[in-house]
């Protein structure tokens, strides 16, 4: 499985964590979280939405959320990189980072169809990952499983694992009970004697193993144990009492059946007090592993209250919410509320770099970093004290380190954090000021392209009332549409922009919302002036129809198909009650036409 690793930009590498070294990594991570200022997070998933299912320039926060929800529910994270870091404003500034790269896989540990019954993969995405040297075998064979908080509470009701039960104060016992108890007691004592008191030397291994066979000895892990069948809770209590009476080195474990009722008590022999503590810890850990798994990391992040720094936050945090917390709520508002309960402060680096004028056009992290490199002098010394050393750098940890580095530079420029207070009474900005603003990413993700967009930066607020969705134009290009539409109706002689949303549908953005409304009105009344428009097979609808398509989740078809299905119902009803909202229409967020050809 020697994976050909992609040539790595940075020599630093994160600690690779699988289920083999998870427990120890979590302990280390906990300590690092304590001492750090921020935590950067990045995820490697099995795909991203394509076509009009991606966040588009016409999307409102609401529809962008619904699209992020779709992506979070269908694709599977395979690696999650977590990087606690601290910034020291010495000169030069120092960044100390502790990157971890967790490999996760939604293995169904409890056979309940959880955490996810199935997931989608996008083959082009997997190909790229494979070319970058992603080790799928490591992930699938040894990835850490997990359950979300909601799934865990469900599983705890459904699945019963052997557990410790506190001893209740003994009640009055009947004769039958005391007979049962003394019988069990002598049985356990006999069995224990074989281990507690070293055998006479001449006893021979055959005899001792025969002895064990007869006494019904088993092993629990590496420790000897004996299983005693019980048929009621009362009997469990009696066995626990019996074991308790005999010696302190016995650990009784209640073994439940499928329905959760006690089936047997497994009494385990420990050789010393330390051994007993070790066993108790093991038992706790093994159930934790089954019920929480990787989520322990999320819980740690959450309880540490450190600000989370990420890129592409809307996508990554909806994913984290749906996989590790609970199913995603139906709207953005509820999601933000629910997310705040888990992570109170989340910083989107792309929001930060938009605060620096010339950086606004940067298409991705790489572009922003290289711009900073060229235009600003922000020396930062990066220290990564604990390195794995052995393996190369995976794409995902590279991403998390980039986020870390970019955040360090930006926070230096923007004077975020108490670290930057000192200079001549300057006021520092609290990181909270930049928190919880997410940008839907309309851009090509993951490309290492450092070009800035060529187009002028003309983001402007446009009301959704100004947008008309047009379809039925049979593969015409934007340019063709621009010259073709004015011939059909005088409304189109006014100024409007055209953007292709997928190969079947385009958005017309009118400068004047009245024009758009008038067009919709004429369409719904089938005005004769639109005869040539209709006879060309053209259809149009307002934003409300698109919103409904997103809300109903009609993601399976082309946009034209989905709009067509919904438009007939909506057309009449919604013209009157329009709740318009705003989008940030940015002509630089252009779709690459080549993808649709």
């Amino acid at each position, binding site marked *: 499985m020697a994976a050909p690793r992609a040539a790595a930009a940075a020599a630093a590498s994160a600690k690779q964590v699988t289920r083999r070294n998870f427990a120890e990594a979590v302990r280390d991570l906990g300590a690092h979280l304590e001492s750090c200022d921020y935590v950067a997070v990045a995820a490697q998933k099995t795909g991203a939405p394509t076509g009009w299912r991606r966040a588009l320039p016409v999307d409102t926060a609401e529809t962008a959320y619904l699209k992020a929800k779709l992506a979070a529910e269908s694709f599977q994270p395979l690696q999650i990189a977590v990087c606690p870091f601290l910034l020291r404003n010495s000169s030069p500034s120092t960044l100390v980072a502790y990157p971890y790269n967790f490999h996760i896989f939604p293995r169904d540990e409890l056979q309940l169809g959880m955490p996810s019954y*199935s997931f989608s993969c996008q083959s082009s995405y997997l190909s790229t990952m494979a070319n970058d040297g992603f080790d799928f075998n490591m992930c699938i064979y040894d990835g850490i499983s997990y359950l979300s908080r909601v799934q865990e509470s469900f599983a705890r009701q459904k699945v019963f694992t052997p557990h410790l039960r506190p001893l209740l104060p003994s009640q009055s016992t009947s004769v039958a009970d005391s007979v049962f108890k003394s019988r069990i007691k002598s049985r356990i004592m006999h069995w224990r004697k074989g281990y507690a008191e070293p055998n006479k030397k001449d006893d021979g291994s055959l005899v001792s193993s025969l002895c064990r066979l007869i006494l019904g000895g088993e092993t629990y892990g590496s420790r000897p144990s004996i299983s005693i069948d019980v048929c009621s809770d009362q009997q469990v209590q009696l066995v626990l009492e019996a074991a308790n009476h005999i010696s302190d080195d016995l650990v009784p474990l209640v073994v439940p059946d499928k329905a959760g009722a006690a089936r047997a008590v497994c009494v385990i022999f420990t050789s010393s007090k330390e051994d007993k503590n070790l066993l108790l810890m093991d038992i706790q850990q093994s159930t934790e592993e089954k019920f929480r798994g990787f989520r322990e990391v999320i819980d740690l992040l959450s309880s540490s209250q450190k600000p989370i720094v990420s890129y592409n936050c809307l996508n990554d945090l909806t994913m984290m919410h749906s996989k590790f917390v609970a199913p995603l709520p139906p709207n953005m508002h509820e999601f933000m509320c629910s997310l705040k309960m888990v992570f109170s402060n989340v910083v989107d680096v792309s929001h930060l770099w938009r605060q620096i004028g010339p950086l606004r056009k940067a298409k991705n992290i790489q572009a922003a970093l290289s711009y900073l490199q060229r235009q600003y002098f922000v020396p930062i010394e990066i220290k990564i004290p604990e390195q794995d050393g052995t393996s190369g750098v995976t794409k995902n940890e590279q991403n998390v380190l980039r986020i870390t580095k970019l955040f360090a530079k930006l926070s230096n420029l923007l004077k975020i954090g108490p670290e930057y207070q000192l200079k001549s009474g300057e006021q520092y900005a609290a990181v909270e000021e930049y928190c919880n603003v997410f940008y839907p990413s309309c851009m090509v993700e993951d490309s290492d392209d450092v070009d800035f967009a060529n187009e002028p930066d003309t983001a402007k607020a446009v009301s959704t009332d100004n947008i008309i969705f047009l379809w039925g134009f049979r593969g015409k290009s934007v340019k063709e549409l621009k010259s073709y539409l004015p011939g059909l109706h005088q409304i189109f002689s006014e100024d409007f922009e055209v953007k292709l949303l997928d190969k079947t549908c385009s958005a017309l953005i009118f400068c004047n919302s009245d024009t758009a409304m008038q067009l919709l009105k004429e369409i719904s009344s089938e005005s004769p002036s639109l005869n040539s428009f209709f006879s060309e097979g053209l259809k149009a609808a307002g934003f409300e129809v698109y919103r409904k398509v997103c809300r*109903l989740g009609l993601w399976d078809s082309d946009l034209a198909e989905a709009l067509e299905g919904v438009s007939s119902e909506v057309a009449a009803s919604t013209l009157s009650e329009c709740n318009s909202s705003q989008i940030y229409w940015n002509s630089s967020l252009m779709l690459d036409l080549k993808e649709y050809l």
Partner: protein
Amino acid sequence: MQGRLRRLLPAPPPRALLFRSLSSSPPPKGGGDGGSGVPVKQVTRGNLAEVLEELRGRVREATFVGLDLEMSGVTSAPWRDTFELDRDDVRYLKLRDSAERFAALQLGVCPFRWDPAKSAFVAHPHNFFIFPRKELSDCPSHEFLCQTTSIDFLAKYQFDFNTCFREGISYLSRAQEEEALQKLNLLHQDQTSASSTASEGDGDMPLERAADILFTERMKLNFKEWRDVIVSKPDSHLLGNTKCAAGQFQTVFFKMRPAIMLNGFSSHQLQLIEQVLRKNFRDLVYVCTFGEDDTSEKRVVYSDTDEDKILLMKDVQEDLLKSREARVKSAIGIRHVIDLLSSERKLIVGHSCILDIAQVYSKFVGPLPSSIKEFALSIHKIFPHIADTRHLMSVNQAVQKLMKQKSKSLSSAFSFLCPASPSYAMKPSSLSPVKIEVEGDETKSSCFISGAKHEAGYDAYMTGCVFAQLCTYLDIEFDQLSPQDNLATNNKLQKHINLLSPSWNSGTVIDLSSGMERPEPGYMRRYPAPVYDNIVLIWGFMSKVRPKEIKDCICKVFGLGSVISVFSIDSTAVLVQFKKPESVNDFLDLKAVLERTDSAISILHPLSTILEGGQTRAAKYDTYRDICSSSESKYLFADQAEAVCATSENQLQENVDDNLISGVHQSILDGTVLTSVNKGDGTKSGSKNEGDADITCQHILDALHDGRALIGRRMRS
């Protein structure tokens, strides 16, 4: 293992026979630890071409070919499992859903040739890694589903996902190939017509930036200079290496015409150059071609006359078309193997292979047809002879007796029918096994890996071995088979081939030659045969409601024997089969009325257990089919049903006559009376019905909890 193999290989002949009587090693126990000792050729995109050539010959010589597929999953949601009481159209919808959603990751092909000299079969197991890479830029990006348990299952058997995703062979189905070629031809026509007519550009770029204007002017001068040299000294460039006056251009030749290579320009600059040439030079042509490794090469070519220019452009276009066609051809990839099997018309042998066949159809032929009959007939055209070893096991009494109580999985059949060693104490009933050798190829031993269970190549081999043994039980004597004979037309076998079970629990077989489905002899039903007209689908009830309670409360209203069975689809939906067909409408009407009336009666009514929560919906069986045919895939049936109904809202709304209400009110009262009267023996009936409910509960448990056993069955171990 490899060492042992090598010792068995006679050294001198390059192509050595790896001698192995069917049995020399036991099938590996448990996980994929340790191979079976059977060398299986591993094929990735690196060695596909050479393997294909070899395989063609092997298939041609073969008597039959074992086939197996490993998929990324089987069911996209628990309720998409096939149930015994599914109607045939529903069952096909579920099969189609599975074949379309999941990816094929490995294809196992194992030709078996009868060697009369040794009176043994010679097998050549091949294991092809498949990955639906996007080979053509204009194909839509492919998305597929993975079922977590299936992936985990493959991982348990050491499936190499890295090889699969990095080196897997891609494919185009026949339909996709046709579409791609059509698109090419259209594009070609467009381009040829465009190049002849509109050369004056509509797509002029305005020159705004100073840098662009300067660059354009400089280029104009340079080209002019170069062109003047070419025109003035027509012979000088023939000397080849002559440096032209315009120092930075070096003359090369393109299709017998002088040309300049344009290297190191950005795409924006190239656009500017193209514009300059179009505007200022009638005799210089901008030509873009694609080299061997798909890199584009741009040239400026001198062409003295207009006729010559047209000729040149035509030439270039044709080259382009050819290279694109070649690219489409090479994108066919793994489908070549299927085309090869199809064109040789050999007997294909699979184990419980309907899903494999459906996968093959959907990935390599085209979209699956809408009905199982059409599917069967189109499959029959592609593979005229298919034998299913699972079906064959059920047709022979002796085998049935032998395999009694045994799992019908492939590995179990293999270990049972193909005994571990020749000296193995035969049961009196079993026949002497057919000898089977596996041929390895020592010279390229690197691509051989000892086969292991649940690797498609080895499974294909096991399937073939099982088939060979089963044939002996059918009294087929291979010794009397001449190489020309088609085994498929052997009269002892003929009546058993082309019969596939639509699912493991359907209790029917479908005849591929006629498309007709008929009951499978000897199949033991767990449930009474369903009557679909009597079935109501109910979903969305409270999660605490158990199937048994549903049965009880319907019985309270409709009478004790009115419900034949309640079958649980998942925790959110049930199918209730009534005794009488009219009960279906009665139930739906009653439900509608109860939901309309907001009185104490509707709360006290026995059906309120089901209706509690207000989300309960009910419909006839056809709705179940519609829900299954949807492309949505929600985890819970109730969510799926809601999603499907949201798009076709009006369909499910029950229209209830207002004047019906009073009538039903009466019956509601009757119903409550009925229950109170019957309360005495209600408990009795309850306990009597427990048997039924137990079965359904058992089934849920089977479906939900016993994941491993289920997969075993599904993946046809």
